[in-house]
């Protein structure tokens, strides 16, 4: 038997949850030493596929071969023994422990860091410093995970996986939470890892970065592999068509309305050390984009507008009248709506019904003398569910059982119910598949048709350019530029955001 060109072959893998078939005879062939991308919509089966490879889930049928040899990966420990490591989507780090403790959690013994049953802390720190520097990460092995930013936490997660000395490294949507600059750095890291001979299986929704970094890309849809394409021949539109099937919807349904009256005006707004003399206006029927790196102050700006943070100076004018946002309640009364980035942590009441999720900010609309009118509540919610095409089985359905796109629509419905004037949307489409994103864009258009205004933060620059009428770029708390819709390009935005002349 000659050398097998494939380090990993997954053949006709099948997996069902109950009667729901998640993987349907899917195939995946990965060559030794390549970076192999896997793309697909949410729910296409990407995560299940790699979980089977990682031994975290059992396959119902099919076979897995490593360098040609048939293997039975029935547990994570077994997969690890074949030197398969994984960086999880949600990182799975221990927030209270140090970087070094996180890196070696699985491999203290293997690295000879244990003496008489006790961990040799000094040696562990030295070793951690070594593995971090091999990947060119500058992180103190003694800092705690909870004190690190998300990008650094991810570096730790990768270092932990690399400390296991893997032959195959699985990355499950590692870049979803990173901004453009951090992604760039991350991709460089991947190149370095590849040079050490590790094969990388890279799951991502971002076609652009796959095109940049991957050798081959496998597109999957509904649990089947649709095609494996060399990254050099990757065409975005074609891949999207493969991912979503026959429908070919327009990505950015940009709607231009004739500019109307000024809605919101921010004058010389400052927050000590974070924002410096911010000035901008928002018009009725306008979508204003805010670009900037994470930590540039863009989220702080949203929080100030919503009354969560007090500005140290400056004025906010709504329709020409100065307003003071002392409490969230006041901000809502004045017509502000805030959709935070993290749906689960700050948006959804997961174990409550979709109806209750829609009415939470407007209980006064559905109550009379301390009592709720549940018939009216259902009617109002139902109208919005239909209007926004939220897919539900029943009105009492818990919101946790909805798909990500429908959950996000539910949160938008909450604010549409109150007829808000200024919508503050922080990464409104992050983590959604492309059809759901398009749905959200259409809802944004419905919002501006009511002559409300939207201020949107997004790390997805093509989305900002596609949807916004104007884009403000923030660099270290100062506005570094403003771009009109038609003149904005990703390059210009990145230059302004990182303040490169």
């Amino acid at each position, binding site marked *: 038997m000659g050398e097998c060109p494939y380090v990993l072959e997954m053949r006709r893998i099948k997996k069902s949850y109950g009667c729901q078939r998640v993987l349907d005879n899917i195939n995946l062939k990965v060559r030794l030493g390549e970076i192999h991308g896997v793309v697909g919509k949410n729910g296409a089966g990407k995560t299940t596929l790699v979980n089977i490879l990682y031994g975290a889930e059992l396959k119902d049928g099919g076979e897995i071969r490593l360098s040609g040899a048939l293997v039975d990966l029935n547990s994570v420990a077994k997969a690890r023994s074949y030197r398969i490591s994984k960086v999880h989507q949600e990182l799975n780090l221990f927030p209270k422990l140090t970087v070094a403790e996180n890196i070696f959690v699985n491999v203290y013994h293997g690295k000879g860091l244990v003496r008489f049953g006790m961990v040799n802390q000094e040696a562990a720190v030295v070793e951690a410093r070594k593995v971090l520097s091999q990947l060119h990460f500058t992180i103190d092995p003694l800092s705690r995970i909870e004190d690190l930013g998300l990008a650094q936490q991810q570096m730790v997660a990768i270092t932990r996986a690399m400390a296991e000395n893997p032959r195959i490294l699985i990355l499950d949507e590692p870049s979803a939470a990173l901004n453009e600059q951090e992604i760039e750095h991350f991709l460089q890291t991947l190149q370095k890892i590849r040079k050490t001979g590790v094969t990388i299986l890279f799951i991502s929704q971002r076609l652009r970065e796959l095109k940049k970094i991957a050798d081959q890309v496998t597109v999957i849809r509904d649990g089947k592999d649709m095609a494996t394409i060399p990254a050099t021949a990757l065409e975005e539109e074609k891949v999207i068509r493969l991912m979503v099937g026959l429908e070919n919807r327009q990505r950015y349904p940009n709607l231009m309305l004739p500019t109307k009256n000024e809605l919101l005006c921010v004058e010389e707004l400052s927050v000590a050390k974070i924002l410096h003399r911010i000035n901008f206006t928002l018009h009725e029927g306008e979508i204003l984009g805010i670009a900037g790196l994470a930590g540039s102050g863009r989220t702080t700006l949203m929080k100030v507008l919503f009354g969560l943070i007090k500005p140290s100076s400056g004025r906010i004018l709504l329709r020409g009248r100065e307003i003071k946002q002392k409490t969230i309640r006041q*901000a809502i009364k004045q017509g502000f709506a805030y959709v935070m980035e993290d749906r689960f942590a700050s948006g959804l009441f997961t174990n409550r019904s979709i109806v209750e999720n829609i009415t939470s900010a407007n209980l006064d609309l559905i109550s009379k003398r301390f009592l709720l009118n549940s018939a009216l509540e259902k009617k109002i919610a139902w109208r919005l569910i239909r209007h926004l095409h939220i897919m*539900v089985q*029943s009105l009492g359905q818990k919101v946790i059982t909805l798909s990500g796109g429908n959950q996000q629509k539910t949160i938008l419905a909450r604010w549409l119910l109150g007829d808000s004037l200024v919508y503050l949307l922080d990464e409104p489409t992050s983590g959604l598949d492309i059809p759901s994103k398009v749905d959200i864009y259409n809802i944004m258009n419905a919002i501006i048709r009511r002559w409300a205004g939207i201020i949107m933060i997004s790390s997805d620059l093509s989305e900002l350019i596609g949807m916004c009428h104007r884009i403000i770029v923030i660099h270290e708390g100062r506005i570094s530029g403003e771009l009109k819709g038609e003149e904005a390009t990703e390059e210009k935005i990145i230059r302004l955001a990182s303040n490169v002349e």
Partner: protein
Amino acid sequence: MDRNLGEQTIKRGLEKEGMLAFLGKAFALREFTLFVIIILCSVVLSFFTPHFLTGANISTTAIGLAADGIIAVGMTVALVLGGFDLSVGSVMALSGVVAGSLYLSGVNIWLAAFVALIFGMLCGLINGYFIGHVGLNPFITTLGMMSIARGASYVLTQGSPLSLPGIARSFKFIGGGRILGFPVMVLIYVLIVIIMDFALRRSTALRQVFYVGSNEKAASLSGINVSKVKTGVFFLTGTLAAITGILTLSRFTVAAPNAGMSAEMRAIAACVIGGASLSGGEGTIIGSALGVILLALVNNALILLNVSVYWQDLITGMILISAVLLDFFTHRSSFLHK
């Protein structure tokens, strides 16, 4: 096209909700399951002991469970909030002791009871202030209050129960009287359950408790005043604990500093059996009431069957864990799909 499909699915869903849904829902509900279990237990019991289905036994059991029941009503709301109140048993004792001591020093018993009620409310407000406004953890805060209220009861009584001779008949009536043969204390309990169950389902104020319990940050971003809601809930648990203390005082005409020992634990157990979740955002008053009834029924059965009382705690614990296990296995399938 895919839009039409969606509309159809929704419409079908709505139709289903109209017709068969009632039965389907009933079986999915914890309350219904509990109700069936209680009926089954009663039937089985009446076979074994003819004494079970007598009016005397039922009314004694009912009076006995009313005190735990009223406390469990408050506890349900606290659990929906995502917290719990460990101090309720002690606050119950303290309010009885305060009323008793005042009475013994010559104060009219109704006035004494009123002052005791205020004391209970104050304990609740203090809990609520520290939890809602300062931001302390409910476990620690109410654990402290539990100790303080219990300690105060012992200090006031020097450790021994105060008997209250010559107490007004009108006051005895609320804990020991009967209307048309029904014990007044049970009627009060039923009334509280009905009002609070309705309020928890329909009142704007208590809906906010569900929001805060389900996701505090999202509730606050929806404009809900989270501190106020929290304070209100602990005010409620304190008030209901004080009412229980006063009713118990009336029933026994004795102010015992050790009244309501581990009532908080029995209440939490009953609420969880009734479907409330320790992680907040879920629970109904009816469910908790059924939980209280089931536990009382089991205890009554043990007594009637001449089983040593020492078995009670052991069996309560087993029922509690079975209920949680049942929850786990019925909900696990939905976790798997995520």
